[in-house]
């Protein structure tokens, strides 16, 4: 039989590939059903909900203070910000004035937590792309932040530190000096990370121009945070709708240009530097004083609907409270940035090689605890 065409020799057909739910590159329990033809992805369908615990429903039977430990378990790599987002919404609803020292401690802990979260991104993203060493460097520094939090509030991941009206404890003696020493050291580490990874030719080839999307696409899918800023759209709630005391510090919002994996990576690195700047200024400005405002023992939010969003590590993190005047919310809706950010995945995965799939998923930086909620 004479061969007429090359396609007769290599017979290819579409294949359905299951990535996950337990796969090291999916950063949690997340499944993708990918239809591939050879090396190219034709269709990708994310399957979520493996980590669904019904937090929103559970919250309906809990007092506002009791919900705080549950928020720790949403985005478990930046629990301080989750804590803050909930207490901030309740405080807005009640109109409580927060003591100055509490606000400073909150900003310091939130920015340190953002730093720890971005360090996880830096480590695991490079691990996804096949580089083992940066992960170890990133976790060495993250461990220091986590240890400081452990000393401050008694837990390493699930802090349960913020309270309605302030924070649970004042800082232990010597803690702020420890943070100061860490910030100074971390600045040197940032240079190290840049030398180690940012100029690496293999890394550049893997991420430049991969996983591109436009500002319109990002806005259309409700993306926020770095995933939106990487397209050049200036939207940071810390600047646009200032909350807490972020207007007292001098810092910038780093912006991307092309909306590809490279921009998302470099924005994480630049945001870490900005967080260090904020912590440094907060350490200079912090004054002694009370850390908890006078709040009633049983907190009753007046009937009505309240929403407030903060700039979480992954985007706009908001709590929407519907209250009927009781000590428990009638309904609590959580705007989880990772959940919204993941929605663009089927579109940007279409037509890319299988090898880039992990690079794209990792660059969106989802935390599955937050996606499943």
């Amino acid at each position, binding site marked *: 039989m004479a061969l007429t065409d090359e396609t007769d020799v290599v017979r290819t057909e579409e294949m359905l590939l299951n990535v996950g739910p337990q796969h090291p590159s999916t950063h949690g329990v997340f499944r993708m059903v990918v239809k591939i033809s050879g090396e190219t992805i034709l269709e990708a369908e994310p399957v979520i909900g493996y980590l669904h615990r019904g937090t929103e429903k559970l919250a309906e039977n809990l007092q506002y*203070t*009791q919900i705080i430990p549950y928020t720790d378990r949403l985005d478990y790599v930046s629990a301080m910000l989750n804590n803050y987002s909930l207490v901030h919404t309740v405080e807005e609803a009640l109109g409580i004035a927060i003591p100055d020292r509490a606000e400073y401690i909150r900003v310091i802990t939130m920015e340190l937590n953002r730093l720890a979260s971005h360090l996880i991104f830096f480590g695991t993203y490079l691990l996804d792309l096949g580089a083992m060493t940066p992960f170890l460097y990133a976790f060495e520094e993250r461990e220091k932040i986590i240890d400081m939090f452990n*000393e401050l509030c*008694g*837990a390493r991941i699930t802090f349960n530190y913020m309270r309605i009206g302030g924070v649970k*404890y004042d800082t232990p003696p010597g803690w702020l000096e420890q943070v100061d020493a860490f910030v100074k050291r971390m600045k040197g580490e940032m240079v190290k990370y840049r030398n180690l990874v*940012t100029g*690496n*030719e293999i890394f550049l080839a893997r991420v430049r121009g991969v996983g591109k999307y436009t500002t319109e696409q990002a806005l259309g899918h409700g993306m926020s945070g770095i995933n939106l800023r990487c397209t050049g759209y200036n939207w940071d709630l810390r600047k646009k709708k200032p909350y807490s005391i972020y207007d007292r510090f001098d810092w910038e919002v780093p912006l991307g240009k092309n909306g590809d994996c490279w921009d998302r990576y470099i924005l994480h690195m630049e945001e870490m530097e900005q967080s260090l700047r904020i912590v440094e200024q907060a350490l200079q400005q912090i004054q002694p004083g009370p850390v908890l405002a006078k709040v009633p023992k049983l907190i009753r939010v007046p009937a009505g609907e309240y929403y407030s969003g903060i700039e979480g590590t992954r985007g706009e993190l908001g709590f929407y409270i519907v209250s009927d005047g009781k000590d428990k919310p009638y309904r609590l809706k959580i705007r989880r940035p990772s959940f919204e950010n993941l929605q663009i995945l089927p579109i940007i995965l279409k037509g890319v090689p299988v090898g880039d799939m992990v690079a794209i998923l990792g660059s969106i930086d989802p935390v599955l605890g937050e996606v499943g909620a």
Partner: protein
Amino acid sequence: MFGFLKGLGVTISQLPKKKVTLMYPDEKPEWPERFRGVHRFIPELCTVCNQCARICPTSCISLSGARDENRKLRIETYDINSDICILCSLCTEVCPTEAILMSDTFENASYVRDDLYLDMHWLYNNELEYERRHPDRAIPETDVQKKAGD
């Protein structure tokens, strides 16, 4: 090529650095004073006010008490189901007499679920153990003492 060499330079510069890994089962970590491990309980201090059981988000605390000959409430049973306890420490926060506290016990994995039901006896023993390990740590000030101080 230059980027490669820069990265290699970082790796080489790390070689003389000290190791940071703690070889866990052989070396135990040193936990800070505020660390939230499994509870410890001091029965004499408890006034059976039930606040800890009410604030618990997962309802893992159950307790009962009775009046003694002086008509004073005394604790009779105090159980924590550490299977569902999330170690949020809200119970220690509301306790007016600091009868329930957190310890630095953290290795409580078990093959049997029954081991995770901690009764008053276990919790009091944990308190004695904690005191033995940390004789220098001060007993926290109670809410009653704080009010008297004001």
